[in-house]
């Protein structure tokens, strides 16, 4: 098996500034048209990383901010249920969607325990901001900015959300990178819903104390 990429979100460093959300919208959702930049209505719902505040969840303090986004599971339920193999894991373990194969049966939305898929059901002017940007009628998801990965000759890239974070709350890299490996090994980072056996590759370092919700 080739090296897998991981993302870790340190909620102690996260200030809820939403720069990651805005960066994702700009990178993957917003469309440039003759009339200016077009965003879907309620655009935050189509960001591939969506901020939420959890009131009740065992093990997490109340008001914990989390991001709803693809967890890039190693045992991805969305991949298992996809009838056309449109959802697949690439050689780096990134769960991707091939819109040329997807029929939009929404089985992946049903199968995902993390609410990571959103579907824009309507029309949008202009062209997607990149070749894997939001397209109407498809169960859209985070792909760790795959278009950036494809442009990289070294096999290393940063995602838009990581690039935008001024507080280094998002850590992104291969599993054998020193920083990623240490966090995985020291056990401080948690996986959401571990009992489902999905083996996510997006981990959270929970806040050490409650912040209260917004």
């Amino acid at each position: 098996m080739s090296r897998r990429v991981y993302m870790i979100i340190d909620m102690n460093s996260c200030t809820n500034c939403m720069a990651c959300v805005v960066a994702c919208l700009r990178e993957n959702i917003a469309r440039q048209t003759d009339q200016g930049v077009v965003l879907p209505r309620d655009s935050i719902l189509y960001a591939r990383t969506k901020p939420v505040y959890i009131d009740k969840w065992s093990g997490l303090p109340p008001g914990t901010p989390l991001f709803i986004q693809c967890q890039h599971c190693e045992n991805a339920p969305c991949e298992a249920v996809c009838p056309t193999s449109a959802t697949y894991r690439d050689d780096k373990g990134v769960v991707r969607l091939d819109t040329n194969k997807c029929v939009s049966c929404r089985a992946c939305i049903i199968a995902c325990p993390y609410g990571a898929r959103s579907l824009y059901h309507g029309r949008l002017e202009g062209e997607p901001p990149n070749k894997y940007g939001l397209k109407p009628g498809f169960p859209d998801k985070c792909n760790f900015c795959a278009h950036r990965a494809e442009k990289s000759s070294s096999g290393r890239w940063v995602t838009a959300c990581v690039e935008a974070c001024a507080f280094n709350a998002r850590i992104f890299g291969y599993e054998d990178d020193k920083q990623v490996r240490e966090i995985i090994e020291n056990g401080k980072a948690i996986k959401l819903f571990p009992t489902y056996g999905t083996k996510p590759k997006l981990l959270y370092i929970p806040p050490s104390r409650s912040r209260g919700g917004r």
Partner: protein
Amino acid sequence: MVEAKTVAKLSLSILLIVVMIIGVYEYRSPKEPSPEMAILPWGPTVIGYIFFALLSGGIADSAIIHTYLEKNKASRVLLGRSLYTALAVLVPGIALVFSDILHPENAAWFYRGFNPLSRIAWNAVLYLLYGGSLLLLLLVLARSRGDVDKPLAKLLALLVLATSVTLEVNLGMAYGVNIAVPAWYGLYTGILFVVAAFTLGSAWELVTSRKPESIDAEDYRKLARSYTWENFYSTIILALVVFWSLLALYSWGLSAPLVVEITRGSISPYFWVSYILLALIIPLVSTTTYLLEKTSRNTLRITLALQVLGIAILLLVPFNFAGQYLRIEQNPLYRQLAIRIEGEITSSQLLNNYLYSPEILAFIGALGLWLLIQTIGEKQLPIQPPRRNTRT
């Protein structure tokens, strides 16, 4: 000359097809884009095509069992017509599949990109196998003037039976494999769909079929009684499956709130009135009294039509809607997502959005396709038993 009854049927079917087209158009081209599909991805259209597939499978299964296992005289003559009805109700189901998937232009990938782990991928294969074998069997019967004893007809009948039951189980398991939806997770969904298919199939035959002139009244009465017994037993088994699954879900802590919601919450009228009253109690009373020869066939027809409606509503609301709603209630991520989309969420508000949608129009209108194909078939195709020669 075309009879007035046929004209009325054709007019009604065209009206319903127009309703379906409006529903499909409105669903596929919404005026206001809604992000609700992230929390309620499977709407009434999904249940629409499942309903028609179960109905078709149920009709074919029953006809084949009465013909080959029970060796019922009338059923042997009427097999072609019953199988044609099964095909006629499968067509709206397939039309709804293509209405539901938002990118039908990629449908070839069901086969080109076949994922053996996916139940939906297997459904695509099973639809083809079931529909294909049904069509072949009809052709064989038409060419042999309804000779059900031809070895090829027997072989194809076996294939139709096997593929339809497998399709019914597999449609259920497309729900049952979802560990992320606690209310559906488990084997019961497959069993529920098979039993529902037999109940729907026998009810539909009793509601829609009429005695052809060529069949002896006593033979036809025996067939009607066979279907009535079948409906009686399958209704009881369906009730056992429903209550067993509710008990199992209740004893599994994660799904207990679903049972409370279905039996006492805002969804409860759909369970008590649609399922318990229309799909269970009334049909059981009417089939029992019919078998005891205390009620007429017309009363039976009306009550079993209500049963079909009751099962459709059971699948639509307590099964499909409630499962997705429970996930919103229980999964903190889905709950937060729903709050972002809807503001404060209640089951009745979400249920309103779900039921008052163009998808319901598409579901109801799809009946027009069945009526059109059935009416044309009965007039134009050799699916009716030959008339008896009345000259002496």
